[in-house]
């Protein structure tokens, strides 16, 4: 008798749990649906365009001590070729014997063409409401010129291979007081942090989804945020020290993630939360 009562209770409990689980599934699904509606509603007008327009102006306007424009800057496809260039970065540049990502190359061109010092060219990598960044605007414009291009980051050169290999190790490096690595959040399928889906950057599909949608206008900040900013802010939240702008680790990690996205259509600048 007692045993039977226990069974009945257990069955009731189990049934309750199944019902609860189903309800959780439904809640989660409708939340995801509503979030998707929110994202859709934002697609109509993307303030990133304001940055793209300013960046195009900065690219074409003579500036700096040499009073030259950036129109002769070689982003990897030849001097002045912007169309599609971002889809093939980072890459090896023979003139500096080094792998460079877009930001590093832009800084290089601002030194060689504008005549800025390296410190000046990298002084303001990310903008804030009180202090706009020319880098943000230039990156917005250059990346927008790769919209629709297929990601095709080269890996023929030994230094390109090395950057990729180092980037992979940096991705899995656990450290800091919280023991976090990039992989803590970005190496599993179908997970999310709070309500934000976390792309699995170790797989092609996830890397494609993530890499091809940066830069993005972040509505939470009212700023255009570049992929470099995304890396920086991830490390801040990993409780690491600050990732140096245009540093070797930054280039290597970018190379790893960009190449994982090969084959996908580049879609940025986008608009995100």
């Amino acid at each position, binding site marked *: 008798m007692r045993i039977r009562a226990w069974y009945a209770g257990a069955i009731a409990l189990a049934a309750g749990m199944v019902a609860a689980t189903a309800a959780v599934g439904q809640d989660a699904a409708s*939340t995801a649906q*509503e*979030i998707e*509606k*929110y*994202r*859709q*509603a*934002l697609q*109509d007008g993307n303030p990133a365009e304001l940055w793209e327009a300013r960046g195009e102006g900065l690219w074409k306007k003579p500036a700096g001590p040499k009073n030259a424009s950036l129109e002769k800057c070689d982003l990897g496809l030849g001097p002045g070729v912007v169309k599609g260039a971002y889809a093939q970065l980072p890459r090896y540049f023979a003139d500096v014997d080094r792998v460079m990502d877009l930001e590093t190359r832009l800084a290089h061109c601002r030194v060689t063409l504008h005549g800025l010092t390296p410190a000046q060219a990298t002084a303001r990598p990310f903008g804030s409401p009180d202090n706009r960044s020319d880098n943000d605007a230039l990156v917005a414009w250059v990346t927008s010129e790769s919209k629709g291009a297929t990601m095709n980051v080269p890996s023929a050169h030994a230094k390109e291979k090395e950057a990729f290999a180092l980037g992979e190790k940096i991705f899995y490096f656990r450290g800091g007081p919280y023991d976090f690595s990039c992989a803590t959040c970005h190496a599993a399928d179908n997970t999310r*942090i*709070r*309500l*934000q889906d976390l792309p699995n950057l170790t797989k092609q599909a996830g890397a494609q989804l993530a890499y091809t949608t940066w830069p993005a206008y972040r*509505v*939470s*900040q*009212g700023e255009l945020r570049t992929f470099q900013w995304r890396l920086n802010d991830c490390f801040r*939240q990993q409780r690491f020290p600050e990732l140096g702008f245009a540093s070797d680790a930054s280039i290597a990690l970018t190379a790893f993630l960009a190449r994982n996205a090969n084959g996908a259509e580049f879609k940025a600048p986008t608009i995100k*939360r």
Partner: protein
Amino acid sequence: MDSGRRDALKAGGSVSLLTLLAAAGWLKPGEAGAQGAWNKAAFEAKSIPDAYKAFGGAPAQAKEIAFVATPDIAENGAVVPIGVTSSLPKTEQIAILVEKNPNVLAASFDIPAGTEATVTTRVKMGQSSNVYALVKADGKYYVAQKEVKVTLGGCGG
């Protein structure tokens, strides 16, 4: 709804309405759309009833007012898309109010003849709240509302 509409009519018919509206700079014939007309009293209202007062009384609920492209859940309160469309004849004004914002009125639009009674913009919301679409049609006020939840996102720091 009918009794609500009668209330609105009563309120709308009171003498104080015109005085209030004039003081608020809300209605100045011939000045609709002129630069500089800004309804200070309404924009300073701290509650929905106060905002209604600044507009001239409680509006009636109207099914003819709909939210379009307005999500139930916003991933971030800094930018919440709000679209309002009215099928009330002679819609001349659409205002968007957020109940739990420090100042509830976010925007008001004058709709001249020839312009569709539909506008879309983006507002800030400090927290989850009811959002009101206040419409003036043929001289009377109507309203519809919906709840928009604002969620916390990302890594939280």
